[in-house]
């Protein structure tokens, strides 16, 4: 049960735990890293202990990986271990953040107080961390969404051609400069045929 959450801990911590011997494959969603990130896990794994353990880790590394990123910047290392990601919120305001390679956009958003929901905490059971990749060029760099991600995207509000789940987009060097928009309200809870006008 340790592996599934490791992607969210960020690679720095992973290295700390594994004596720095583990080299991170430069991979995309759906490749080796996802294997470990285990965002799509078989059911019945979530036993109470595991769950508590997970949330402890989640909270711990929350602080840990932030410091890791900061000390990185201070070191001024050549090797690019973080990438720049810009989130564009619902009002069109932009926030640029540095995200350690290996970390999911959901996690990164939460560490940076970006209002991206994450109801299922990255276990691919909801669609609340829906983001829209703003440039097709970057969208094409991502591995195609799995069936399971597509199942959740089906239910995302304001779905677009370049929609992804934030928990499934993992920072990697070639994504440096990616811009992600939080979906704008184009939702319709039609109670009696009321359809919101396009704005």
């Amino acid at each position, binding site marked *: 049960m340790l592996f599934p959450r490791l992607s969210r801990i960020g690679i720095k911590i992973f290295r700390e735990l594994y004596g720095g011997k583990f080299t991170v494959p430069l991979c995309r969603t759906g490749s080796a890293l996802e294997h470990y990130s285990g965002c799509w896990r078989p059911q019945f794994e979530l036993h*109470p202990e595991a*769950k508590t353990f997970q949330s402890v880790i989640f909270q711990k590394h929350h602080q840990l990986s932030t410091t890791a990123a900061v000390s990185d910047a201070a070191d001024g290392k050549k090797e690019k271990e973080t990438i720049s990601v810009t989130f564009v919120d619902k009002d069109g305001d932009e926030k640029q953040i540095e995200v350690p390679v290996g970390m999911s956009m959901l996690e990164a958003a939460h560490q940076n107080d970006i209002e991206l*929901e994450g109801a*299922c905490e990255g276990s691919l059971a909801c669609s609340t961390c829906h983001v829209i990749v703003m440039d097709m060029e970057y969208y094409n760099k991502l591995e195609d969404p799995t069936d399971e991600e597509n*199942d959740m995207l*089906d*239910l995302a509000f304001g779905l677009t051609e370049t929609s992804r789940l934030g928990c499934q987009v993992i920072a990697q060097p070639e994504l440096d400069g990616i811009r992600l928009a939080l979906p704008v309200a184009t939702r319709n809870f039609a109670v009696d045929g009321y359809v919101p006008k396009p704005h």
Partner: protein
Amino acid sequence: MAICQARAWLSRGLTTLSSHPSLRVCVVGSGPAGFYTAEKMIKAHEGAFVDIIDRLPTPFGLVRSGVAPDHPETKIVTNQFSRVAQHERCSFYGNVTLGSAVTLSELRELYDVVVLAYGAESDRALGIPGEDLSGIHSAREFVWWYNGHPDYRNLNPDLKSTDTAFILGQGNVALDVARILLRPTAELATTDIADHALTALEQSSIRKVFLIGRRGPVQAACTAKELREVLGIKNLHIHINQTDLEKNQEDEEELKNNRIRRRIYDLLSKEAASGPSVPTSGQHELHFIFFRKPERFLDSLDRIGHVTAVQFEKTVLKAVGPGKQIAVGTGQFEELESGLVLKSIGYKSVPVDGLPFDQQKGLVPNVGGRVLSDASRDPTMLQKGLYVCGWLKRGPTGIIATNLYCAEETVGSILEDLQQGAIGSTSSIVKKPGREGLLQLLSDRNIEFVPFSRWQKIDAEERSLGSLRNKPREKLTTWEDLMKVAKE
């Protein structure tokens, strides 16, 4: 556009209303709609004090009593809700029923704002002969039973005297129910399924489940994840009639415009094309039946009062507008035998005294969450300080996340009304008593409410009972046990 406006109010809320004097808010119902409302309210207004009441000693609504036991990831959202409940400006009071412990007019006296988010605790009816025979249950009852809702632990559905179950409806609830009936019990044993249900399912003689829809595969109301799951059950024979998959012009149009429907249709077509058409011995079976409208339930001859068969009318689709086709009868009937029928045709909300209610739609008439005085929806006739959210506001559809956007809209309306002086205590003389008033009233009435800290005792007990059996939790399923542990 209403929702954009709501969002503008939400984001402006923080700055412009932070200096506003305290606002007493009561949210009725602790499901997703209630918790998302509380969360948004607390975030948007620094003076908001939010009390959430629920009729059960346990919070989280259908996330606890609806979401299937084999969907643990979906329940992770309770972590977020628990953080909200423990916020310094939020309180949870379980075992407090609107309508008996406290009335709506009392709540409105006590609080500046009342948000009703008490869901849909009844069922749509078919309205056909024989509907009250034994052996027929609503999916809501059956789901509450297997999920250990204390009101339905004694449902005791008879799973032993028939090998066939009919599920009427093809939405996600129908698929949940089918999966629970068909999934190997060894797999269910490691979930938080209620103990009494696991035992009954272990002894069940149900081998064939029919998922019956009045329309076609293009209109099936389920979503891809649920369908994929039920199709993936081990050692299950699945039957789909190839001819049912033929599409008309309107079907093509519907598929073109709807990604979910397209993916569902593809999954069904693939399934129909693959696999042997006869079950191997010992295999459980799942039959998708389309174009059948239930007409009447037939009484058993040797077990009077118990259902033995259902008469269906065959249907065809008829276009009634762009992208909308309804099922119309063809005058051809057939009878199919089954001793267990689960109606999964939708939930329905119930009104409380003093609440405007649209009986036909089964929801509270509202504009953007503001409760309207009558169902004819004159938008100027608002109920001051009264709001609605979730299934009670929109009707019984939508996933957990839908309630998040729904809460955003309702809270946006509240903030707007507040800003315009339509609600809130403007002068200190008319300050509403809020929480203190509610607690006083509950104490006067000897109502033993269950605060969040006491729910945590129940939670801890359930988890520890569960760990003995390799389950994430063993739910306490009687009122006595729940209240006893809460009071320990």
